[in-house]
């Protein structure tokens, strides 16, 4: 095994020799499953409501009857987005925890360079992002399947697209966390900042932007772009199965999928990747030069 292989194994062992990974995995699975279940019921309730004759004009809009709407798509995207908070926190603690526990000293003493140690860590957390992503997709799917009618569920290719988007989002969120953690170096600081920003600050900001007709900006923001990955896939899938959808309704659908103001899934991914890179390069620069005293 080469030097990098050694460091990869070392970094991976760090993650599995403390309880943190399953401490975060349990709430991830529960939250993903709960959201999948909840949004499934909501969607089903909505379709039942829409199927009643007095809102029948809605079905005219989509060209198909409500019982054929794949409403679960929105819930799936939203549930994935919410659950990826946990892999982000997991990533955020990667470097912050080592600095806090002062194990970073031993880490740097045993690696060929700080850059090598940080790269190995990033690669291992990319793997963890994928593991969390898989768990999230499976848990959400289970919840949604249990609570939705089969006609409301995506088809096989839809599932595949959403699962891929979910995995990508989870990996990117983890990497984003790693970068922010390296930049902040404080466990509490990193956790609070990540949670506050992703759950509150940006949502408030998005609201203000939407009210002022600046929703395009949302797609450039971290939370807006990462949600745009799964959200855009879900909205596209819904519309492709719904026939002709008027423009003004498309926007509403994208908001429902959590992709309000967001770009296409791949562009959203690239934008969020840029945020990740900024955080990581900043964190790298700080950690690579820092005096470890």
């Amino acid at each position: 095994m080469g030097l990098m292989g050694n460091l990869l194994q070392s970094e991976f062992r760090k993650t599995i020799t403390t309880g943190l990974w399953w401490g975060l995995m349990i709430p991830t699975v529960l939250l993903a499953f709960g959201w999948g279940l909840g949004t499934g019921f909501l969607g089903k309730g909505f379709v039942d409501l829409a199927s009643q004759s007095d809102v029948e004009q809605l079905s005219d809009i989509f060209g198909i009857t409500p019982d054929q709407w794949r409403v679960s798509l929105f819930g799936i995207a939203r549930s994935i987005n919410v659950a990826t908070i946990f892999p982000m926190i997991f990533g955020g603690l990667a470097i912050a925890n080592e600095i806090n526990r002062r194990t970073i000293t031993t880490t740097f003493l045993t690696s060929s360079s700080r850059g090598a140690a940080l790269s190995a860590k990033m690669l291992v957390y990319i793997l963890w992002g994928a593991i969390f992503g898989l768990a999230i997709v499976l848990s959400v799917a289970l919840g949604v399947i249990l609570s939705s009618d089969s006609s409301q569920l995506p088809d096989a290719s839809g599932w595949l697209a959403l699962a891929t988007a979910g995995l990508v989002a989870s990996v990117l969120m983890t990497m984003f966390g790693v970068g922010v953690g390296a930049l902040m170096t404080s466990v509490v600081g990193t956790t609070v900042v990540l949670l506050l920003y992703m759950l509150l600050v940006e949502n408030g900001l998005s609201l203000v932007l939407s009210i002022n007709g600046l929703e395009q900006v949302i797609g450039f923001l971290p939370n807006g772009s990462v949600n745009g990955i799964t959200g855009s896939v879900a909205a596209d899938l819904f519309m492709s199965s719904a026939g002709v959808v008027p423009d003004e309704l498309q926007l509403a659908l994208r908001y429902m999928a959590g992709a309000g103001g967001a770009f296409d899934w791949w562009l959203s991914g690239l934008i969020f990747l840029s945020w990740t890179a900024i955080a990581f390069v900043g964190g790298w620069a700080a950690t690579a030069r820092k005096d470890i005293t």
Partner: protein
Amino acid sequence: MHDGSGRIVVQNLTKQFGPVTAVQNLSFTVEPGSVTGFLGPNGAGKTTTLRMLLGLVSPTAGFATINGSPFGRLGQPGRVVGAVLEAQGFHPKRTARNHLKVYASAVGVPDQRADQVLQLVGLGSAGDRKVGGYSLGMKQRLALATALLGDPQVLVLDEPANGLDPEGIAWLRTFLQSYARSGRTVLISSHLLAEVEQTVDQVVIISRGQTMYYGPLDHLRQSQQSRVIVQPSDVGALVTALRAEGVQAIEQLPDGRLAVAGVTSKYIADAALKAGVSVYGMQEEQIDLERLFFQLTSGQYAAPGYPGTGYYVQQQPPQQGGWA
């Protein structure tokens, strides 16, 4: 990448933390085959120096090398140098064995090595306990075990005796001596000479970030000199008289008496007579090693003009030993 010599070179090393000069133009070398003590009072700059040597702190000026190479270019540093540092941490929820396995992979040694070093430092039976429950002494042992993972040629220890029980200290002493005797390099810091006196062959003594003495401990021992404790009627007048005659090694003791080194009591009595100062008492005293260490490093706290302590402290260089 490195020359395998086992030599540590510290050359004109300086570190400035904002307004604080932690280390100032420090130079010394450490040769393999011996245990070198790195001594100085608290705050003298020992930890900072060792961290610069290990690439953890970047020097403001100067450089430090291990085996002829800066730490960052050793390639596989864990195989070349092992270090036990102050404030080197452990994850409290990780067991000692897992901690060692984590770093065994990084260093590139098989997992059995983790068990070997656990046995070596006497933690064999505690290996599966979480480090959070370890005592300070056990953590020191675990830190040493981590340092030994790569079977390194150079061992650097920063105040390793902290937290160790007397039994542990005795064990460490024997261990380090045999480690050095096998041709390897051991550098160990301490703020107490007595703590390492029986372990080290060479010493580097620093104070306020500067080298005060560096050379064999034996030379320092041989340079131990006697001094005369004198109780004059007028301290100031006697000091002035002695300094006028070129006597520099004068120190005022806390009880008000003067300690004068480098001259005989007869000399002092004559000087006192000439200056018209009465002498109420005088006695000759052998300076022990600890006393000498204190003299070498006391500049830090007893600088001229510093209120409360002797006002005329001047370093008296030992005759032998390499001076930096």
